[in-house]
């Protein structure tokens, strides 16, 4: 029999051909792999959330292998001596076993928790990027609303997960959740009783939260994330303005190989940072909280940071109780306003912001080019206002720790939060709008007069003036012709115009010349230094 020569080089091609002959995937795949993504660091913030979600799924699966979601009472006989002999639920007992006896268990638990904090933090940072650059405008309104829904789902996932170990802190959180449900007029008692299966805490809640935490909420998250990403693919990514970029094209890198490799690298970075956090920083030491007992509430019992704004609003709410004398009398406790109305409003009203803004500005066109925050001062002001409110509420959620560690009276912290919540957001709005207008003004000034050179010239009449380098063509008198405002970075220093050494140095210096250096479309080639007249003292 004739020996056939094995041609290694042709294997990939032949395999690909074989696959395509059977599945007909070449055309759609070519489109996908050639899809172009614009490249900017701020577009990677959402990816942090996506990648930490993947880490959450992986570490979460590991945790389910050892966790027992049961409230059966057992006596602890495990490896941690300071709890031995204590009566506790099987859920808490298995969480302790997971932490102390399962190899790598504590690391995985800490990874899961840090990844959850990172997931929520990157959602908020990503949301800020989308908001302040106007990326939510038509046609991406739905994706913005989905993003808010993702935050809300993440909030619920975080809260249910926080409750699962059934330690002292979990139980305190559940008690507060039960109180919030009870504060709802008319349906409150039924709602709480149906969720807890009777009186708080009952024996069912851990099992119910478990199924919500490992199946229902992650299922919802996964579905919404898929739609979120699908819409980014379908509607294409927004891009910054710049040379060659218009509202109808996308300038960037192809999906394969460069963009995919970058994304792979960034996934590894996110994974690495989460591992670093999990290995270096202790999080949620459940063994110190002890098993949940209704009578044991530690000071500094806080929710995780993304729930803290609600806790803060509850702490700041004055004790205004409303008694309604109908029948036996209804009571609306003060808790209802911040915890139910506040949370409801803060998570649903922002969903409608894209439509509200479009209606206000009467701008119903599609936008694929981003705006710098300074170019939409009112939106930036509104965002500054919202974030100031969120930050004050969040800080007030930890006001006892802040008061203690910085030696401030807790009462003073509470009042500062109450007054700050009313006064600071409008102030932030005003400052943000003024700063935006000032920055715009400066950009326009440079476009009209040129960049400052730092060269002082003395005129024959004794007057000193600074020489400006025009960015564009000049008229007969040497005065720069005014340039159009393009809504993008204006070079304001001579080294940005290529007159001096590059401004970016060291580690961050680009290996190659960047495709889209941050220059205005209107920048002319700048003449070299030797063509300039030497400046002398004039003698």
């Amino acid at each position, binding site marked *: 029999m004739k020996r056939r020569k094995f041609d290694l080089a042709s294997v990939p091609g032949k395999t690909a051909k074989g696959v395509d002959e059977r599945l007909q995937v070449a055309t759609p795949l070519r489109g996908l792999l050639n899809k172009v993504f614009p490249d900017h*660091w701020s577009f990677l913030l959402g990816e942090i959330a996506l990648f930490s979600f993947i880490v959450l799924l992986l570490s979460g699966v590991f945790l389910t292998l050892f966790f027992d979601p049961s409230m059966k009472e057992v006596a602890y006989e495990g490896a941690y001596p*300071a709890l031995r002999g204590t009566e506790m639920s099987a859920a808490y007992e298995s969480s302790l076993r997971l932490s102390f006896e399962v190899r790598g268990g504590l690391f995985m638990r800490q990874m899961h928790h840090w990844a959850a904090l990172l997931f929520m933090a990157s959602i908020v940072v990503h949301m800020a990027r989308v908001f302040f650059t106007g990326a939510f405008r038509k046609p991406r309104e739905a994706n913005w609303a989905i993003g808010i829904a993702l935050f809300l789902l993440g909030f619920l996932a975080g809260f249910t997960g926080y409750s699962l170990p059934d330690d002292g802190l979990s139980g305190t959180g559940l008690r507060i959740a039960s109180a919030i449900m009870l504060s709802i007029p008319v349906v409150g008692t039924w709602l709480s009783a149906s969720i807890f299966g009777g009186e708080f805490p009952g024996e069912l809640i851990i099992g119910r939260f478990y199924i919500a935490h490992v199946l229902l909420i992650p299922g919802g998250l996964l579905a919404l994330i898929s739609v979120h990403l699908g819409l980014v693919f379908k509607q294409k990514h927004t891009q910054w303005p710049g040379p060659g970029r218009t509202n109808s094209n996308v300038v960037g890198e192809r999906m394969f190989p460069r963009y995919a490799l970058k994304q792979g690298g960034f996934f590894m970075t996110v994974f690495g*940072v989460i591992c670093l956090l999990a290995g270096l920083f*202790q999080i949620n030491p459940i063994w*110190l909280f002890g098993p949940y007992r209704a009578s*044991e509430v530690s*000071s500094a019992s806080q929710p995780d940071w993304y729930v803290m704004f609600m806790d803060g609003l509850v702490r700041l709410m004055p004790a205004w109780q409303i008694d309604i004398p109908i029948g036996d009398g209804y009571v609306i406790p003060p808790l209802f306003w911040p915890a139910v109305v506040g949370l409801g409003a803060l998570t649903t009203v922002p969903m409608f912001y894209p439509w509200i803004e479009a209606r206000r500005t009467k701008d119903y066109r599609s936008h694929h080019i981003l705006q710098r925050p300074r170019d939409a001062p009112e939106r930036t002001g509104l965002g500054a206002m919202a974030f100031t409110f969120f930050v004050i509420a969040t800080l007030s959620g*930890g006001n006892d720790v802040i008061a203690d560690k910085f030696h401030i009276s807790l009462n003073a912290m509470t009042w500062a939060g109450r007054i700050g919540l009313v006064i600071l957001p409008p102030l932030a709005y005003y400052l943000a709008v003024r700063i935006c207008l000032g920055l715009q003004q400066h950009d326009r000034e440079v476009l009209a007069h040129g960049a400052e050179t730092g060269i002082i010239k003395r005129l024959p009449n004794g007057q000193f003036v600074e020489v400006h380098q025009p960015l564009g063509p000049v008229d007969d008198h040497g005065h720069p012709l005014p340039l159009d405002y393009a809504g993008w970075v204006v070079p304001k220093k001579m080294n940005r115009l290529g007159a001096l050494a590059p401004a970016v140095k060291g580690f961050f210096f680009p*290996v190659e010349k960047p495709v889209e250096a941050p220059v205005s479309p209107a920048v002319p080639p700048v003449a070299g230094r030797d063509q300039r007249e030497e400046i002398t003292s004039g003698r």
Partner: protein
Amino acid sequence: MTSDTPAGRRLRVFNRRRSAPSRARRRFGAAVRMVAALALAGGVYTAFAPGALAEDNRPLSAAAQEGKALFDNSCISCHGRNAEGVEGRGPTLIGVGSASVEFQVGTGRMPMTRQEAQAERKTPQFNQDQVKQLGQYVQEIGGGPQLPSGSLTEDLKQNPEALARGGELFRINCTSCHSFGGAGGALSSGKYAPSLHGATEQEIYAAMLTGPQNMPVFGDNEITPEQKREIITYVTQQLQQDKDPGGLFNLGRYGPVTEGLAIFLVGITLLVFAALWIAGKS
């Protein structure tokens, strides 16, 4: 209120009073009974009262005299000449006992720097001997709780369950102010529960016994001396020694507040720089 008394009974009482002895005889009888009662009370007192307490100036021991000298120098302006307290400045020290003095002076809280919500722990002004002398003085003039001698912790080799029992008692009695990890916490109006990480076993015992600053007193009938020793064992053997795993940094064990701070200061910061770096490489 006599509405529920039958009319006949009321009448009878009235009648009996009418037939009572004459006014002069009643007064004489009362005087005799008064003299007899006074004689009895005085006699009993003289018979039973110990003579020593009747002495006005009990001689102080040598240590207490040293303590009195220190007291007259450093404490008298707020606590008064005989530790009876000064209105608006400092409370009386009669009955606080040497345990309280050893805690307050031994941790540097007394003498206070200024009048404020709560005295702060600082470098003590007096050395161990002087603290003992001051304590002896206050003990001798007013009495009060004293620290027991002997070990204030349980030996975990002989009594391993003490650690878990101490933890349970700690979570029931102490965490609501000092927090689960002993990091301390805020109280109202500038008052606070201090961190337990620098506290010695004597200090913790004395604090439970005397309730310094804003802490409630945990007397021996509330938490027995054995339970106190178990709590001290948990604090010194478990919380202070930072035995539990979970990384190089425990973030001060302030709970989710510092964890939330860490995710932004470490996690988000690192990743934003990574994003800047990756996006910069084209």
